């Protein structure tokens, strides 16, 4: 079902553009041209974050940190097995999906732990990645309270996720 949505939207857009007497080919080319400078602009930010994450995981620091804070997370209702996922999620999308896959295979796709992990990933975002990439084209250096608010939301989201998985 969801497979139809995107192509349908594309067809609608192309037809609408044609109807509005906009040349689809020329316009598409004009837009696509902007992809290369954009990718060049954001590459250094992606590289830095990915290098930092690789070091964090390789050194075992995330595992250590996860052990250290898991009592607090347990109190909030987040199972120990998911602490590392909650900690890594703000930094890396691909990394947290790899972690989710490990959880799914280890505990079984329909277990409580796995369902929690899925909901946690579904309701959160790669906060640091998004912030770095979004501000890459601007002069903004001081973000004030943006990151703390986003992190609070992520933790609250994880708590709600674990609660909901118990009920539903």
């Amino acid at each position, binding site marked *: 079902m969801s497979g139809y949505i995107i192509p349908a939207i594309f067809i609608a857009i192309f037809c609408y553009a044609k109807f509005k007497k906009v040349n689809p080919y020329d316009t598409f*080319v004009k837009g*696509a041209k902007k992809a290369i400078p954009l990718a060049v602009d954001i590459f250094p930010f992606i590289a830095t974050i*990915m*290098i930092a994450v*690789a070091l964090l995981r390789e050194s075992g620091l995330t595992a250590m940190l996860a052990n250290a804070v898991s009592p607090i997370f347990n109190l909030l209702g987040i199972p120990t097995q998911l602490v590392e996922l909650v900690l890594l999620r703000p930094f890396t999308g691909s990394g947290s999906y790899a972690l989710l*896959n490990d959880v799914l295979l280890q505990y079984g*796709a329909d277990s409580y732990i796995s369902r929690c992990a899925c909901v946690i990933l579904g*309701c959160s975002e790669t906060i640091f990645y998004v912030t770095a990439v979004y501000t*890459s084209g*601007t002069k903004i250096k001081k973000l004030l309270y943006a990151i703390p608010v986003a992190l609070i939301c992520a933790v609250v989201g994880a708590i709600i996720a674990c609660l909901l998985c118990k009920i539903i």
Partner: protein
Amino acid sequence: MVVGSLIALLCTTPENALSSMLNASAEALTLSIELCGVYAVWLGVLELVEESGLAQKLARLLRPFIKKVFKIDDVEAEKYIALNMSANMLGLGNASTPLGIKAMKRLDDGSGVANYAVIMLIVINATSIQLLPSTIIGLRANAGSLSPADIVLPTLISTFCTFALGIMLVKLFGKLHKKWRQRGKK
């Protein structure tokens, strides 16, 4: 953080430090090239959406909400925010990125400090509403789940909760920040 990791590595497996950094950097390059391809598709479509006037229509639809939440009066920025949020809701994270960057460039006042609207945009994207977590459902199905889609409802509820919480917290912190700065001036 990076220094801490390096120190930890020195105590365990120092020979892995450089290799993992190089690996990550190479991975980042692959990802950027992949993203470049993805962006070409989406920016092409986006150009059509803009030129045909669809973007303006969508923005007009979402304008009351955006005006209230972001406290801005900039038609151009409103348009990009509307498109950015629509792409997010459809679960097209990679399509919403270039739109978010465009909106960010419009909202930036060049002072080097993030203003209220910038922070709101970051938080809304960091707590993004996703109506259909298709990647996760796919992973679950692959892992042999009997009903891979039964996480959709809890995901929807929690994603709406974090979204609402994010907006409220930004409003609250924005007020506190304003008060704090005024007190600082006295």
